[in-house]
């Protein structure tokens, strides 16, 4: 017989303390992660924000974003006043005060001026590699999702693509160096001495020479594209599969060809998904150091990539500065002091803001497109 009295609790239930302990432990670990993130962001924002922002209007120090990167000169003048000047301003100072003696001079490479070069280089690398990765990635995803029949071979291909995503980025860097920098074929009339193989093509003196693209923007873009390709393929394939089969069936049943079906009934509806996941891939491309350090990036460059070129295509074979590599150089190659902090924390802060903006953009875009595209 049911006795309602048994439902009434007497004292603390069995296992109460265990329950509380487990809950506190799990909660504590979760908040620990939040604390770590807060400390990391807090440190960068506290030290980096003053570089970019200032108290008076227009509140943003555009000079740091728009000036070229230079060596920083620190010295005392005869009156004992301490100066911190980037190389160009330092030279002006010397010209203006000809014959003046300066004391305690120290120089810090890459720490003066702004970071326009690295920002521009990162933008070019990101755009170039995303264009390449999207073209190859979406093509491969369409093939895998729409054309390929399920077979052990296709299964193996998928597995290979997934494995590619797990390869450390430094390996991609070395791969890019040995393939894109040293080995890919180019058409030239003056093959390099280290060319692996030359094949005459009988148009003038031109030959196909397997000598690579040198360390250049295009070698860097190709390397970064290889690195991000598995992510793009996987994300694109998922977006393509998310399009209801009914659309394909309806289109085919109306006498559309397979390619028409893909172009009009599958791709348009999966493109928002592909693009939003690709925006997340952008943050990874923009942030990687290892793939570009042997293939595209230089620590110092006086000109912007498009300056001093004979034709616009030469930009592809020019080396660039890049934000992550710049940060690496500042952190690893320059002795840290009160004078280098501005460049170091400023660069990291700007980089963080850029990445945060991209992530935020992708989240907003995703929310908007999801609201618009429903079936």
């Amino acid at each position, binding site marked *: 017989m049911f006795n309602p009295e048994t439902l009434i609790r007497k004292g603390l239930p069995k296992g109460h303390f265990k329950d509380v302990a487990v809950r506190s432990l799990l909660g504590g670990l979760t908040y620990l992660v939040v604390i770590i993130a807060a400390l990391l962001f807090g440190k960068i924002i506290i030290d980096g924000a003053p570089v970019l922002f200032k108290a008076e209007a227009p509140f943003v120090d555009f000079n740091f974003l728009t000036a070229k990167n230079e060596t920083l000169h620190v010295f005392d003048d005869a009156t004992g006043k301490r100066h911190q000047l980037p190389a160009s301003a330092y030279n002006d100072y010397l010209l203006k005060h000809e014959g003046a003696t300066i004391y305690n001079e120290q120089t810090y490479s890459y720490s003066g001026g702004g970071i326009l070069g690295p920002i521009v280089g990162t933008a070019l690398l990101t755009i170039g590699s995303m264009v390449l990765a999207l073209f190859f990635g979406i093509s491969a995803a369409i093939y895998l999702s729409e054309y390929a029949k399920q077979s052990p071979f296709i299964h193996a291909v998928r597995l290979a693509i997934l494995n590619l995503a797990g390869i450390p980025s430094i390996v991609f860097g070395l791969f890019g160096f040995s393939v894109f920098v040293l080995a890919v074929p180019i058409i030239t009339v003056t093959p390099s001495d280290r060319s692996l193989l030359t094949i005459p093509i009988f148009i003038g003196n031109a030959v196909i020479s397997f000598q690579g693209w040198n360390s250049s923007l295009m070698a860097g873009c190709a390397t970064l594209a290889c690195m991000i390709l598995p992510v793009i393929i996987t994300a694109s394939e998922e977006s393509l599969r998310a399009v209801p089969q*009914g*659309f394909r*069936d309806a289109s*085919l*049943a*109306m*006498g559309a*060809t397979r390619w028409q079906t893909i172009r009009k009934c599958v791709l348009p509806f999966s493109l928002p998904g592909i693009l939003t996941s690709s925006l997340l891939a952008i943050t990874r491309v923009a942030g990687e150091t290892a793939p570009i350090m042997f293939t595209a990036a230089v620590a110092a460059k006086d000109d912007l990539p498009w300056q001093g070129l004979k034709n616009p295509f030469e930009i592809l074979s020019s080396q660039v500065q890049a934000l992550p590599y710049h940060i690496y150089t500042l952190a690893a190659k320059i002795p840290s002091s009160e004078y280098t902090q501005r460049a170091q924390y400023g660069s990291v802060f700007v980089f963080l803001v850029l990445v945060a903006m991209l992530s935020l953009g992708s989240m907003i875009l995703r929310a908007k497109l999801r609201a618009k595209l*429903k079936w």
Partner: protein
Amino acid sequence: MPETLNQSLTRQDEDTSVAVKNLDFSYGSSPALKDINLEIPANEVTAFIGPSGCGKSTLLRCINRMNDEIPVARITRGGIHIGGIDIYDSSVDVVKLRREVGMVFQKSNPFPRSIYENVAYGLRTQGQRNKAIIDQAVEESLRAAALWDEVKDRLQESALGLSGGQQQRLCIARTIAVKPRVVLMDEPCSALDPIATAKVEELIWDLKNDYTFVIVTHNMQQASRVSDKTAFFYMGELIEFSETSKMFTNPRLKRTEDYISGRFG
């Protein structure tokens, strides 16, 4: 020797009957249809009935080769002839075949585009660029599907804003916009309420002079209302095929009678 399927089928006087001959069909190693022989007459409505999994939808999808999309599915023996042409012959262009043999699916599947674009889709894929022709075809198809009066003021709005019944009629309009000879319908009313169902049935009745209809249905009343002929399938076999009036009043076999009267299935 067939020239192209398109040429022979677009002739108005051409026989658009569908003949299924000794058809065996299997998914991988499991047979789905066994030795089906069936003559579907032109410009009539033929209903396929039978319990779930009896192969009626499979046979329907064989008629416009939609089963080609399923990797393991294949015909193991026999074939299907439309207007005397073997549609599984290697010389048949499956794209052209599907323009002549349209299909309406169980789940209404309008594209998330405007009503107008949904109906214009088939014509556009065939390369029709002339806006006047497309406009006219859209209106005619929507009228034929008894949808024109309900949507004529909002052709540019999303098709997803329509009710379930309207969406299914839009799918029918979209299918007949490319002027097929044969229209296959796979349980077109299974998700519709009785009023929307009545509208779809009425439209099948109105259109049957111009099209050969094959309709798969689980609804016995529907089969008896709309069809001229009925085929009863069970376990991948064609059990009985005759005039609908005859089958529903005086079925030849006990099993057919049991199914129709709801005693099993």
